[in-house]
């Protein structure tokens, strides 16, 4: 079987490829990798600037997603809901 490895030190079949590392990013960020997989993942990241950048990009993506909505309740929605509460309580007590 002929396998072409771009770097000779990657000739060890247990090393992780970039494709595998990219596929595991979400599990890694959730702390869901088993210890040996985590070890291989981290070793790959140390050696591979591209996957390192890719991970940084995924982290940046998550942070931007956390910024996209101002978390303010609209005054109109607040009023509607407080009305709902009072109506419900009125019915609850009279019924």
């Amino acid at each position, binding site marked *: 079987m002929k396998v072409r490895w*771009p770097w000779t030190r990657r000739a060890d079949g247990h090393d992780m490829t970039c494709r595998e590392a990219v596929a595991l990013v979400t599990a890694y960020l959730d702390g869901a990798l088993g210890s040996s997989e985590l070890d291989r993942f981290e070793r790959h990241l140390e050696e591979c600037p591209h996957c390192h950048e890719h991970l940084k990009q995924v982290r940046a993506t998550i942070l931007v997603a*956390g910024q*996209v909505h101002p978390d303010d309740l609209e005054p109109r929605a*607040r009023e509607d809901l407080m009305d709902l509460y009072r109506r419900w309580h009125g019915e609850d007590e009279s019924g």
Partner: protein
Amino acid sequence: MTRRSTEVDTEVDLVARLRDGDESAFAELVERYHPAMVRLALTRVRSRAVAEEVAQDAWLGLLRGIDRFEERSSLRSWLFRIVVNRAISTGVRERTHLPVRDDELEHRDGRFSQDGWWVTPPAHWADEVLDRMTAPALAARVRQVIGELPHQQQAVVTLRDVDGLTSAEVCEILDITEGNQRVLLHRARTRIRAALEQEVRP
């Protein structure tokens, strides 16, 4: 951890006050959760007005059910589950999604050789995005791409990354396995990352 347990303490306290008919407890919960509930409903219904109705309906469900609520799950998970169920049964929207094939995802995110190495390594833009994080153009693009995702991906990424819930909570709310949750999150983030890339490196 501290934050989480404080959150739980406050929730227990709020539930007790709500049962006592304390209106300010309801107001506080609304303040905390309503915007996220509307976002969650929007993953299943088309219009904002309908999403508001679904969320209101869930609040009514909370008021009706609070005496039966058992603190086995968090109040938030319970409430958000009601939103999901109501939103699905409302069934108003059958949004037509742009089909996203997985090989397309792989291609966008990957560009890998047969051996699994990068053919076209990613351009470096993470730092630039972090510097421009609050730029309206980025937020708008991310909002748009989230809105175009298939609804399960949309729900998972909204709960996890927009609203910051844990994977355990999301699994409970959407009634999916952890593995399934991760696949959906991974696909959603892949799409959003690709959109950001286009935005900063057109």
